[in-house]
């Protein structure tokens, strides 16, 4: 039989984490990401790893803090309301410059919301992961294969820059099944000489902490951290361009919305409408440069998202409001249909940017 296997997004992500060297998982069940925990519960005991169902999301993220401090690859996963609970811990991870991978398989909100897919935690992931000045690397998979690939990437980026990577998936990405190949080499090793592993009286103490007694010292660490963020913006931005060569309309969409949009774009191209797509793979850092460049030729942008319009603000900033940006959305657990996106493209083509 082939090396391909049929996996749910949640399972592929969990297996990829194991292949990336993650041996410590702390979580708490919540639909639609529960299969991540279920998969880890089955696999971790067999490979000498730790699976622990914590008493709460807050406990789980603090266990992540502990393991990350010791220099091991560690992960937690949840869905929207559970990520909100983790936000204090995310800030502490940032304050202590600890690498970790956090998974959000989004569901409808606000509040308890619903269990159907959503992308309405865009702000939470890219702007407000917790209190204080900090960023997380936010990766947005659009297939089960990417759920796995970006998990490996997420661990590497987290270790490389000593910060949290977040996989911002949605319920469909977690639940859908697709054939995948999980072929990754040995996990890349990063310098973790800062980890608290015991000095054996051979080196000075390492201290992992986010409290600073002197404000100027705290300020210095904020400046250093943001220098690192600047490098990430320069070097780690990822996106896919689709039929953009001659595009006059640019759809911007990530995750499941991008897949829906692709179908609509193919349909519109068949009608002779020059439309393409920029699909951000990193939501932070946001692919500003290709959008600014596209704004020279494109007359209108369409943001397709399963929120009331969150990413649309980043598009407007990226293109410095040079062109109109329209919103094509569904919320509450509903997914835009290719017909809806197609209709939005056709309407936009008729208007021709005259707004």
């Amino acid at each position: 039989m082939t090396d391909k296997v049929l996996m749910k997004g949640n399972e592929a992500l969990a297996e990829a984490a194991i292949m990336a060297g993650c041996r410590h998982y702390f979580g708490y069940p919540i639909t639609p990401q529960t299969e991540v925990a279920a998969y880890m519960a089955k696999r971790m005991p067999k490979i000498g790893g730790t699976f622990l169902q914590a008493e709460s999301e807050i406990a789980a993220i603090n266990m992540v803090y502990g393991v990350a401090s010791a220099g091991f690859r560690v992960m937690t996963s949840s869905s929207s309301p559970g990520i909100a609970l983790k936000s204090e811990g995310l800030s502490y991870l940032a304050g202590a410059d600890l690498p970790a991978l956090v998974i959000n398989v989004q569901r409808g909100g606000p509040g308890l919301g619903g269990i159907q897919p959503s992308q309405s935690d865009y702000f939470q992931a890219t702007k407000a992961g917790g209190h204080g000045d900090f960023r997380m690397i936010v990766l947005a998979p659009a297939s089960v294969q990417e759920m796995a690939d970006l998990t490996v990437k997420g661990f590497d980026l987290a270790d490389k820059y000593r910060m949290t990577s977040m996989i911002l998936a949605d319920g469909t990405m977690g639940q859908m099944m697709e054939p995948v190949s999980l072929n990754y080499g040995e996990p890349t090793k990063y310098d973790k000489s800062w980890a608290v592993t015991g000095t054996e009286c051979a080196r000075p103490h390492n201290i992992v902490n986010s409290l600073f007694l002197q404000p100027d010292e705290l300020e210095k660490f904020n400046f250093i951290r943001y220098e690192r963020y600047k490098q990430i913006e320069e070097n780690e931005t990822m996106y896919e361009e689709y039929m953009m060569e001659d595009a006059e309309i640019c759809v911007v969409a990530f995750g499941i919305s991008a897949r829906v949009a692709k179908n609509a774009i193919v349909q519109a191209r068949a009608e002779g409408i020059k439309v393409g797509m920029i699909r951000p793979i990193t939501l932070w850092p946001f692919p500003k440069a290709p959008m600014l460049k596209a704004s020279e030729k494109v007359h209108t942008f369409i943001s397709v998202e399963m929120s009331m319009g969150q990413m649309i603000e980043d598009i407007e900033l990226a293109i410095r409001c040079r062109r109109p940006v329209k919103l094509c959305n569904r919320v509450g657990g509903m997914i835009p249909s290719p017909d809806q996106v197609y209709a939005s493209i056709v309407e936009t083509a008729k208007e021709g940017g005259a707004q």
Partner: protein
Amino acid sequence: MDYKRILLFAGHYGSGKTNIAVNVAMHLQRERGSVTIADLDIVNPYFRTKDSQRDLEAAGIRLICSEYAGTNLDAPALPPDMYAITDDRSRTAVMDIGGDDRGALALGRYAPAIREEGNYEMLLVINGYRPLTRDVASTLEIIHEIETAGGIPFTAIVNNSNLGEETDAETVLASLAYAHEISEATGLPIKMTTVREELYEDLKHKIPDLFPLTLQYKIK
């Protein structure tokens, strides 16, 4: 192909139980009528028998499922009319059991009456392309867990090995050895091999007891 009065489909989650249960129910409704399909899944709130409600009802099949299936209420509830499965012996019943041992736990409530009547088939749905049931040892583990939780031993195997949209004839043919291995290790016969209907013509003379499947879609 002969079928007993009660057909139970169980297996690892994501093995294709619900899709097969709906297709077999449709087939039996055409063959003999008076079919009931019951959704016993108390674990997964998605991909439910209820997604095919319109088609099932149009075919005259009675659907018994939680009234919360397909809603935002993620509650492990079963309706009281589930007892009709064992109380009304005049109808054929297809039961879609939830994935793994957690899903099979709900079956335990109905197992004594099913065993007492003794007119059932407990069918193990397998997919050799699912990573946690790729080999005999891991499949045996899941079989043991489901039987312990559900209280009914398996009687036969349904080979539903597939790679989703990438499935072709070769994908299915390459899985036969795996299915035979499971069959030998468990002593369970292979009742059928299921394939997407597009592959049926190509494979019907190459694989015994081949059963064509129409993929079920959620209709809003």
